[in-house]
């Protein structure tokens, strides 16, 4: 009895230490983001004099200035359009593809699987040069269409792979009995597979959305027109122009990260599971 008591006491003791340690670790590791938010609410003068402290008077106006000067309304519309189209096309095409590859298994589908494994593991920088010149020739350079097309293409291997591993868990018996009842494959896909696979469609959409929202390599190389920039590259252009004004650079940073941080806080489980399941670097 007394030993039991001792033990629980000891466990409690270590766990308080653990909580303190972990809290400190979190504060240290999130410090740069806190810095971004704090400095976004200061005047530029204040950032230079006191970069770490709290803002004396929160300058909410910074956001309004940055939003207007940075042309963020257009940038948000561009990003939103890009994200939505990419998600719809990727999820729809990958859903069909993964279903056929796991449940219909036509001859040659294993080869397709291997092909996707390969394209998933190569770096997207490898495709840059041919795409650059192809896009010039096809006059897709400096268009959102062209950029969206690239985002769709580069996100497909990962989404097919994670959808495949989910569909493998759907028992064949359900599909078989539907087939006996005279259901066509499209109907099975739409009426049976999609409803039970909602979680993976959500995760896939979030992954594509995050990847597209944060992407800058292709957006930076393929879009030069300010009015067509997405939020991430708009941020690059803006900070290039106003690099000396740190309060505005920080405010623009907050505007850039806010949509994804909010989405993340709502769907943190899906984000974490999706990102680690695919084992991709964002």
């Amino acid at each position, binding site marked *: 009895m007394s030993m039991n008591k001792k033990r629980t006491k000891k466990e409690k003791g270590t766990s308080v230490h653990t909580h303190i340690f*972990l809290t400190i670790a979190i504060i240290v590791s999130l410090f740069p983001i806190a810095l971004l938010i704090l400095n976004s609410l200061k005047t530029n003068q204040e950032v230079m004099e006191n970069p770490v402290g709290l803002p004396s008077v929160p300058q909410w106006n910074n956001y309004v200035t940055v939003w207007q000067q940075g042309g963020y309304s257009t940038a948000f519309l561009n990003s939103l359009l890009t994200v939505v189209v990419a998600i719809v096309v990727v999820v729809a095409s990958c859903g069909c593809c993964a279903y056929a590859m796991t449940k219909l298994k036509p001859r040659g589908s294993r080869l397709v699987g291997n092909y996707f494994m390969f394209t998933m593991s190569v770096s997207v920088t*490898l495709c840059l040069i041919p795409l650059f010149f192809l896009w010039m020739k096809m006059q897709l350079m400096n268009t959102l269409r062209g950029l969206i097309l690239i985002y769709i293409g580069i996100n497909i291997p990962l989404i097919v792979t994670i959808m495949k591993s989910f569909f493998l868990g759907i028992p064949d018996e359900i599909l078989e009995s539907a087939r006996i009842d005279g259901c066509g494959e499209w109907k099975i896909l739409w009426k049976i597979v999609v409803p039970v696979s909602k979680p993976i469609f959500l995760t896939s959409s979030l992954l594509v959305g995050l990847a597209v929202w944060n992407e800058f390599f292709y957006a930076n190389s393929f879009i030069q027109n300010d009015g067509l920039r997405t939020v991430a590259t708009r941020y690059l252009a803006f900070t290039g122009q106003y690099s000396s004004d740190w309060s505005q650079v920080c405010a623009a940073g907050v505007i850039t990260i806010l949509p994804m941080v909010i989405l993340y806080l709502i769907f943190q489980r899906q984000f974490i599971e999706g990102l680690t399941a695919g084992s991709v670097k964002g």
Partner: protein
Amino acid sequence: MKKKVMFLNFRIRKRVLDMKQIKKTKLISKSERKRELLAWTMILPALLLNVFIMGGPIIGTFGISLTDWDGIRQASFIGLDNFKKLLQDTHFFWAALNNLKWAVFFLIVPVIFALIIAGILRKVKRGQLIYRTLFFIPYIVPSVVVAKIWTLIYSPFYGITAWLEKLGIQNPPKFLADPNISLFSVAFVDSWRYWVFLMVLFLTAFSQVDKSLEEAAMIDGANPVQTFINVTIPQIRPTISMVLILTTIWSVTTFDFVYLMTGGGPGSSSELVSTYMYRLAMQNQQPGYASAISLVMVLFSVVFMSVIGLLRKRGWEI
């Protein structure tokens, strides 16, 4: 000859079967073919989109690497000359050496951080999810913003350097401006974002660890640290080796943070193979040579993975 015999055989067998059966088999094979056709129509949209954006261009990269193309004029075929040029390009080897340093840094610093925090966090029953959620935030912040925040933190005028100066430290490190440490300063920023990803991977692996072994070790008198290193970590070895392999491959192609924070400078102290390739392709108008470099990057990953696969087949546990 053989074909003919088989055909005859088939005909005889066919005659043996009664008519109904024949109709049925024909029907099945027809519906089978129809199903296969349907399956391919489902596969093709995704496949073609990816081939158009990735598969085709990868072959294109290979083709361009065999030419002296400058992006404007007619290209001429020069065989493997670009690859020969590569072997004599000291700048390329300098960049590759930086990639190696980057890989070493990434195989040590974030991995150890992630192991320690995951090891502590796994003992926490209440609130583990909240900690995990908060720790993971940096991973979803876009690299453009991360790079800017850290440029401010590293700034010699308002950042750590100025702060250390105020504390009276002589010649504090000038992170991004000092050629000796610029590469590692950038690597630290990338790993600040990367380690949380590894931490979550390790945390998942730890949740499947056999607890009775640890308890046995504790009863035998091992302290928690000894138990963790000698009993717990060996049990997640598959995850650790996967992490090490992934980290090595990513270190070869890493691009974002060096491009955003130093552009390879000062001088070429933080130049990586990818930033060198990007500059050759976009500014120096040498897409042919740049393609050869990006192919070498992929070749490294392919060879590396093949070696790992081979060793695994030989019975190495990696």
